[in-house]
């Protein structure tokens, strides 16, 4: 074997070994979900297949409702983030006004001091606003995202000034310019940021756990955690069936869009 061939071989083996290791939990989840409970921890190749775990899991908890809640939640957050972060990023990228430096530093501060850490105070705020146990309460702290503002500002700064000025000469106001010039050029950033945001908030747990109390507001993660509680013994078959059902959509979405996903990151300049 030549040196490059050996090198190729080693890399391929390494990559595949790590991939299998990384995939193992998912393989196990599928195994337990499609086999009866007594085979959950026994890997007999000829174990009988069953769809019962999915049916049981689906019937055991209002997953459809959890799904809807999670969907409403990420939509609410995403739309809010897009609108607010776009406006703020536009201001930072193309307007000169006193205080912009300090304010931008305050925005960047949120990259460190994330709402996830301020659970005690934010819970008190939500209680004051009477928003406990609402989907709005789960989403509100995340809508003004320092990360989003930063990212869009970077993107907007790369838009050639001439385009901006050309539009203004035609008599367009600042918002029209934003809508016609900046936003179309920042599409990859929106896509990349949107995907990160959706996968983050779809999977977020601690804060929703704290502010939700009822089936009507619980997102999928909190639903899964109460579902999997172990006081009467853990039942992997049904828990894994539920896990697969609830993360299936995102997983499939990634499988279908992985190429676009990476490209949008590339073009968004997140690197």
């Amino acid at each position, binding site marked *: 074997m030549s040196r490059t061939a050996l090198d190729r071989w080693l890399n391929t083996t390494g990559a595949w070994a790590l*991939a299998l290791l990384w995939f193992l939990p*998912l393989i196990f989840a599928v195994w337990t979900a499609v086999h009866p409970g007594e085979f959950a921890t026994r890997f007999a190749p000829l174990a009988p297949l069953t769809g019962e775990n999915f049916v049981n899991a689906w019937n055991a908890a209002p997953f459809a409702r959890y799904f809807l809640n999670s969907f409403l939640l990420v939509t609410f957050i995403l739309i809010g983030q897009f609108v*607010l972060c776009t406006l703020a990023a536009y201001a930072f990228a193309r307007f000169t006004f006193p205080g912009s430096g300090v304010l931008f530093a305050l925005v960047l501060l949120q990259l460190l001091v994330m709402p996830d*850490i*301020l659970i005690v*105070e934010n819970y008190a*705020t939500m209680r004051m606003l009477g928003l406990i146990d609402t989907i709005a309460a789960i989403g509100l702290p995340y809508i*003004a995202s320092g990360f989003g503002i930063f990212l869009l500002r970077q993107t907007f700064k790369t838009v050639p000034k001439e385009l901006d000025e050309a539009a203004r000469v035609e008599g367009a106001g600042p918002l029209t310019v934003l809508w016609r010039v900046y936003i179309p050029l920042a599409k990859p950033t929106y896509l990349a940021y949107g995907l990160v945001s959706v996968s983050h908030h779809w999977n977020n747990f601690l804060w929703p756990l704290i502010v939700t109390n009822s089936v009507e507001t619980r997102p999928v993660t909190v639903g899964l955690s109460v579902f999997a509680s172990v006081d009467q013994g*853990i039942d992997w078959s049904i828990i894994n069936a539920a896990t697969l059902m609830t993360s299936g959509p995102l997983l499939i979405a990634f499988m279908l869009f992985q190429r676009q996903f*990476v490209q949008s990151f590339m073009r968004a300049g997140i690197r």
Partner: protein
Amino acid sequence: MTRPSLTLRREWVHGWLLLTPALVLLFAFTHLPAVTTIWDSFFSTPRGRREAKFVGLRNYETLLADDTFWQVLSNSLWYAAVTIPVSVGLALLMALWVDGRLSGRGFVRLAYFAPTVLPLIAVANIWMFFYTPGFGLIDQIRGAFGLPEVNWLGNPDLALGSVMVVAIWKEAGFFMIFYLAALQSIPPQLREAAAIEGASRWTFFRRVTFPLLMPTTLFVSVNAVINSFRMVDHVFVMTEGGPDNASSLLLFYIYETAFKYWDTAYASTLTVVLLVLLSALALGQFFLLDKRVHYR
């Protein structure tokens, strides 16, 4: 400054107006709570009909004398010190692999990225099975080689490490995406030029690729720092911080103090520590790495 001041002032107003909605929310849910957290840490916890009263530094004295706090702090620092470099390093390795020519690249990429999509709270149950002594997956494999069973999560020396593995598994694929995007935007001509000059792959990586990836490394590692203090979901399921707080992390302890014991003042005090820690780490990292980063 030849422009008339009227236009200038209109630009000011526009800028401020555009910022207002985001700033209101930022102040309401980040800056203000951060300040009140510090404020509250100087008061006692209101209970029943007892009001909060100013206690000066008493909460901080309690903190210094709280063995659990020191244990949890040290756990968190270890957790960060291990999970950050390992997950970032693995992410880079993964990105290099799936960026190169590789048979079955689609699957490999999916496998690396899948953990990002799965909720940590749910996959923690799967990992719990892997770690189960005796009939868990790891012990079944060890058993096949005649090795004794290991109580991964029930042994204070192993519990934190076991929890770290899950965090690394969860994080690496997410960071890989950033590296991958960066790698794909490196002009292929550079590689061709290097090949003509006879540079080895390693030299190319060390001299060209790695320096070009520096901004990504900064970005990813800032994210990794934040995540390492924020990601505690799996602790809820796998160990609940046990045995004897061996795998408890700062944010988990804050949650317990605030929402299990309802000692909000002390939880605020703990949060202050976390805020200080995060700021110090992130600033340090920024200055350390920034010297070697060329941002546009």
